[in-house]
C-alpha cells in the first residue's frame, strides 16, 4: 500500500534517527492505519466475548429456539406467498447482501482514493452510506417485528420447543376443542410461538404421549435468547451506525477537497474502509451463529 511519498523498502533500523526519531514506520504503514488495525483486534475480542457467551449458553440448554422458525417473516406480509406461508432466513439473507454490496462499494472508494480521484471517492462513499443505511433499516424492521408482533423482550422468549409428541387440548384462541373435533398435533422438536391475546400471553395446553392424561402448558423458551439477540445484533447495529457517521464525515471532507494536497493522500478513506470491512466481517459471524446454525 505504498503511495508515492513512502519508501517501499524497510527503514534502516541501525540508524538512531530511523529507529527513535520517527523517521521509520513500524510495519511500513502509517500510524493511523496501524492503530486502526489494533483497534479492530480489540473490537474482535469484544464481539468474540459476546459470541462465546451465546455459544456457551446455547450448548448448556436442553432446547434452543431454531433460527429458521424465529426468523421466517418478511415485511408487508410477503412471506404469505412462500410455501407453507413462511420464508425462513430469506430476509436476513437480503440484509447480508446489502452489507456485502456496501463493503464492495467501499473497496471501490479506496481504489479511487489511490488514484487521487476526488469525485470517484465521494461517489462510491455515498453508495456505501446508502448500503449501510439500508442495512440499518432492515434491522429496524426485524427488531420492531420481534418486539411489536412476536413480543420477544430482554427477559421474555416466546419461542419454545416441544420435547415429546402430543396433541393440543385448546385451539389457538385458547378455547377447548369441541368433543370429536380434529385437534392439532405436534412432534418432538417442533417449535411453537406463544402468542399474545388482549395483551396477555396465551400458553396453550396440551397432552403428551410421555405423560398421558396429564395437562401441560406451553413453556417459554430459554430466557437468555432474547437478551443475547438484542445485545449482539444491537452492538453490531451500533457499529454500523457509528460507521455511517464516520463515513459521512470522511465523505464530506473528501468532497471539500481536504485530502487533495495531503502528504498521505486519501489514507483517511482507507482507515474508515478498514473499519467498514470489519463491520461486514463481524456480520459474517453473527449471521453464522444466530441465523445459520
Amino acid at each position, binding site marked *: 500500500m505504498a503511495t508515492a511519498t513512502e519508501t517501499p523498502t524497510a527503514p534502516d533500523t541501525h540508524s538512531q534517527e530511523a529507529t527513535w526519531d520517527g523517521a521509520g514506520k513500524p510495519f511500513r504503514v502509517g500510524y493511523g492505519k496501524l492503530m486502526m488495525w489494533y483497534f479492530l483486534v480489540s473490537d474482535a475480542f469484544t464481539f468474540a466475548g459476546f459470541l462465546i457467551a451465546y455459544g456457551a449458553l446455547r450448548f448448556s440448554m436442553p432446547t434452543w429456539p431454531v433460527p429458521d422458525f424465529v426468523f421466517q417473516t418478511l415485511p408487508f406480509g410477503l412471506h404469505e406467498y412462500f410455501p407453507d406461508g413462511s420464508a425462513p432466513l430469506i430476509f436476513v439473507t437480503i440484509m447480508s447482501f446489502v452489507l456485502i454490496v456496501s463493503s464492495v462499494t467501499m473497496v471501490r472508494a479506496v481504489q479511487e482514493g489511490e488514484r487521487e480521484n476526488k469525485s470517484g471517492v465521494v461517489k462510491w462513499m455515498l453508495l456505501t452510506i446508502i448500503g449501510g443505511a439500508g442495512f440499518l433499516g432492515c434491522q429496524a424492521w426485524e427488531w420492531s417485528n420481534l418486539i411489536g408482533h412476536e413480543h420477544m423482550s430482554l427477559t421474555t422468549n416466546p419461542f419454545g420447543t416441544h420435547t415429546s409428541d402430543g396433541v393440543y387440548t385448546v385451539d389457538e384462541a385458547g378455547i377447548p376443542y369441541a368433543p370429536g373435533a380434529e385437534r392439532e398435533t405436534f412432534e418432538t422438536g417442533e417449535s411453537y410461538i406463544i402468542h399474545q391475546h388482549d395483551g396477555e400471553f396465551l400458553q396453550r395446553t396440551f397432552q403428551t404421549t410421555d405423560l398421558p392424561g396429564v395437562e401441560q402448558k406451553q413453556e417459554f423458551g430459554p430466557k437468555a435468547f432474547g437478551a443475547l439477540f438484542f445485545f449482539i445484533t444491537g452492538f453490531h447495529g451500533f457499529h454500523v451506525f457509528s460507521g455511517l457517521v464516520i463515513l459521512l464525515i470522511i465523505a464530506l471532507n473528501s468532497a471539500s477537497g481536504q485530502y487533495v494536497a495531503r502528504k498521505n493522500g486519501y489514507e483517511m478513506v482507507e482507515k474508515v474502509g478498514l473499519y467498514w470491512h470489519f463491520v461486514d466481517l463481524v456480520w459474517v459471524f453473527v*449471521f453464522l451463529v444466530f441465523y445459520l446454525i
Partner: protein
Amino acid sequence: MADHLSYEQSKKMVFRGLGLLAAITLIEVFFSLAGKGHISWLSFLSEGNFMVYLIGFILIALSLYKAKFIIYDFMHMKYEAKGLAMTVLLPVGLLFWGMVAFFQEGSVWGERRQLIQDKNNIEVQAAPPTVSPIERTMIEQKAVEVRGEDQ
C-alpha cells in the same frame, strides 16, 4: 495496492469478490435450510446427529473462507508487512481455542443441570412422607417451646 495490481485488474477483483461472497452466502443459506429439513429432496441432511455436525462444519468452513477473503483482499492484508499480519491474526486466531473451550464448558453446564434435576425427581418419588400430620404438629410445638426457653 497500486504496486501489485493495475487499476483495471483491481476493479475486476472487486466485482469478482462481490460474486464470490454473494455465492458463498447463498450456498450457506441453502445448506442451513437443508440441514433443518426445509428442502424436501435433501431431507436426509436433516436426519441424525452426524448430519448436524457435518452441516455445522460446512457452514463454519464457508464463513471462515468469507472472513479470509474480506481480510486479505478487501482489507488488503496480503499487501501488508508480515509482522503486521501476524500481530493482528495470531491473537484473533487464538480466540478459536477460547470458543471451542467455552462451548465444551457450556455443554457440561447443561449436563450438570440435567443431573441435578434427575436426582431431584428421584428423591421426590422415592421418599414417602414418614412423618404423620399429628407428629409434625408435636414437633413444631416442641420447637416453639425450645425457642421460648432460650429467650
